[in-house]
């Protein structure tokens, strides 16, 4: 780069620096104007893009403007995974101790109750779309019933009494599983109108 006058510029005051900055300035002005023109259509494009991308406006767990079907399914799976893991661990601990260690079995059941109630709270807070919310309500109720039964079982005074709840708890658990499958199928499936 030199300080000499730009040979093609035509007038003596125009240096290469002047030519460069003028050209860049004009380009920038054009780009800014183009950006302003583009900005005027944001509203319509936004509405169209939301509809085209199957966004569910009521599904905004992290303040996102668009939550799609796969995003909701992923959020739901992420919520279920730790609860499922905890319940499996607690159930295994109970099964291992229901025959001879009352205190340990009760502790396992107490932990199970806590996990079931936490799951209930998470399900209640999850922003299901209206079509799935009805199914989710059934799941929450089934989970609540199971938690109540498990809490009752945890308060047993003997091993015999403790084991007498097993059948009822299994039935309650099966009810939860059935409801859970329904919700999971609805979450994975395309939303109504989507």
């Amino acid at each position: 780069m030199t300080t000499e006058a730009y040979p093609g510029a035509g007038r003596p005051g125009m240096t290469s620096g002047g030519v460069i900055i003028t050209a860049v300035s004009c380009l920038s002005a054009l780009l800014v104007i183009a950006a302003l023109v583009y900005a005027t259509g944001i509203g319509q494009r936004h509405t169209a893009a939301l509809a085209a991308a199957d966004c569910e406006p009521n599904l905004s767990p992290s303040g996102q403007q668009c939550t799609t079907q796969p995003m909701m399914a992923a959020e739901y799976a992420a919520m279920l995974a730790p609860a499922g893991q905890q319940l499996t661990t607690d159930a295994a601990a109970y099964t291992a101790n229901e025959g001879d260690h009352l205190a340990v079995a009760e502790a396992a059941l107490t932990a199970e109750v806590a996990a079931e109630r936490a799951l209930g709270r998470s399900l209640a807070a999850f922003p299901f779309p209206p079509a799935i919310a009805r199914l989710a309500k059934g799941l929450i109720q089934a989970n609540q019933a199971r938690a109540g039964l498990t809490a009752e079982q945890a308060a047993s005074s003997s091993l015999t009494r403790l084991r007498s709840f097993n059948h009822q708890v299994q039935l309650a658990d099966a009810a939860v599983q059935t409801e859970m499958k329904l919700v999971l199928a609805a979450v994975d499936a395309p939303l109504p109108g989507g």
Partner: protein
Amino acid sequence: MARNTVGPRADQAWATDYYQPSPPADTRPAPRPGTPKAAKKPASDHGLQRRSPKSRVDEWMEADFKFGGSRIKRKAVALVLLGLPAPVPLFFMLPALVTLNSNTFAVSVDDTLGTGAEICLFLCLLVTPMVTLTGQHWFVPLRRWYGIMMAATSIGDAVAASITDNFAGGVFGRLAGHVFELMGFLMVMLVIPIVCTSNPWAQKKLGKYWKRFQRLTYVIWGLLACHLMLLEGFGFESGSNGSGFAGDGDAVFHQRFYQYSACSLFLLTLRLPPVKRWIADRQKEGRSWLVWVTVAPIFALFVLGFVFILNEEIFKGIDSFMNHPSAE
């Protein structure tokens, strides 16, 4: 009588001395009159080869004011206020770090710290053009501060990504498993020696090579272009497959590569020696208005790009801070 109890220079410790604007690349000692070279080329006719005298704003900034029994320079206060936003990206990730929330790190550390590092880099690079345009030098220490914060943020990003990203191939795979990641990894590898030598001791030891070495920052600037280009399909991917979100109505504004380009045009143009000379000439002629009029559209484009980068940083940063990361 109020006096500075810390020492005469305590209030300006990071604001002075070592990081005064360095002379531009084409600086040479002015040849002595009468020598053949001097006869060929008059020295310093564009105001680039000598440090310009202090502007009125610089003088105003040098003045003290009384605060709580101490005398503080206006410059020191202004520098602290202007430097405060630099650690904000790191602050956004603090709750996730304290609670060891790997989900927040895995989902949004790249956006929060990566964008934060980009902001710091641009602010660091903005100092020189602003000196060229305004002739003021009081804010030059911010260059070092933003450079250091850029390094801290980008290293934090790399460390978190190496632990929490979902890419296969172990730590190296998570850091450099894709080409765009490799670019980011190279940037971090370059930023480490730069930040390690950003101190008076290294400046003294490296002597004339120090400035050349610090210019590796320009390589980082270039690698960032490659990183962002590859990240979003050369600027053509948007929505769930690129920047923004699936229902984005202004995908172009959310393209990181476009934001980068809009900002870089201003930063690059005002670094070109012929442009700097042109500006110095117009200022010397007393036609600064012409400079401002010409630069205004370029600066407007810079602001346009920068606002969207800031927008992304704020929204994703707040999501990260709330431990509810945005996967957009």
